[in-house]
């Protein structure tokens, strides 16, 4: 039940963010909101990268070696090839090989 409610909340709030400009700013816009809408994605996406890697333990276990290799592969692939799908799947496959074969 909680799972379904959670999906309803995500769906509802997502729709809200999409509908808000149409509901509020038919005529005039608010400069602060416009500014936040413009710059927030940069900070939030950086935060999401940290969120994804929050469980990595650099001090024990494998010291996050697979994560470091994975992150570097994605960054390098993207800088040099600039192909979103290639970067995502190339990096993911390298990471999966690392955790499944090299460090069991």
């Amino acid at each position, binding site marked *: 039940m909680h799972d379904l409610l959670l999906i309803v909340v995500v769906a509802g709030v997502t729709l809200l963010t999409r509908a808000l400009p149409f509901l509020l700013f038919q005529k005039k816009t608010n400069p602060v909101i416009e500014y936040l809408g413009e710059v927030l994605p940069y*900070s939030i*996406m950086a935060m999401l990268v940290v969120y994804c890697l929050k469980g990595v333990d650099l001090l024990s276990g494998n010291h996050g070696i697979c994560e470091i290799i994975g992150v570097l592969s994605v960054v390098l692939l993207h800088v040099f090839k600039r192909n979103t799908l290639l*970067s995502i799947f190339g990096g993911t496959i390298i990471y999966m090989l690392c955790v499944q074969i090299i460090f069991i």
Partner: protein
Amino acid sequence: MNISLCILIINRGIFMQRTIKEAFKASIPIMMGYIVLGMAFGMLLESKGYGVIYALLMSVFIYAGSMQFVTINLLTSGATLLSTALMTFLINARHMVYGLSMIQKFKDMGKRKPYMIFSLTDETYSLLVGSQTPEGCDEKEYLFFIALFDQCYWIIGSVMGSLIGSMISINTTGLDFAMTALFIVIVVEQFLSSKQHVYTYLGFIVSICCLIVFKADAFIIPSMIGIIIGLLVMYKGGQRDA
């Protein structure tokens, strides 16, 4: 009288067919991306024990790529509804900018307008914002079908991924990294296409500090608050161009 009515209906049919065909052509660049990324989403969701119904429900009603990946995490970690709402709002805040620039374009969409607003993802936005309605096509229908085709690709991809994940037993250890990779790509892309990197740095610094202070399970809300305060301070400080 009857004959002219028939001709009118046939003409209208040909007109529609052409519009749908052109909209399909325009949506092709998104097709591969949505089907493949949708499949990764479906497989990941399935590997966490949520079956095809969940994939379908989420892709039909949420329909937001990166947010759906985060939702998998929220589901498995048993997040509260309040933190879910906050997280959704901030991750999707960028949609407000898309909406702002679509107010004019969607003005005369009539009964299709609610769907146009609902389906305004990053990818659909990128198609609509630069779209030129081809000659002999109805603009409203053209935009509507682009948006509809895009969502179909996403739904097909996620359902396929979920089904493949449930039928073939693949060792999915490490598949979670697809979400990490997606966000890294977005950050790198933002970094390469913008000159001002201060907002990206702010995001990293605030969230890493919060991670150290508040630990992994509780750092996300303090980070979001910290980021907003930081951005508002920078606004007051006159730093405006991204």
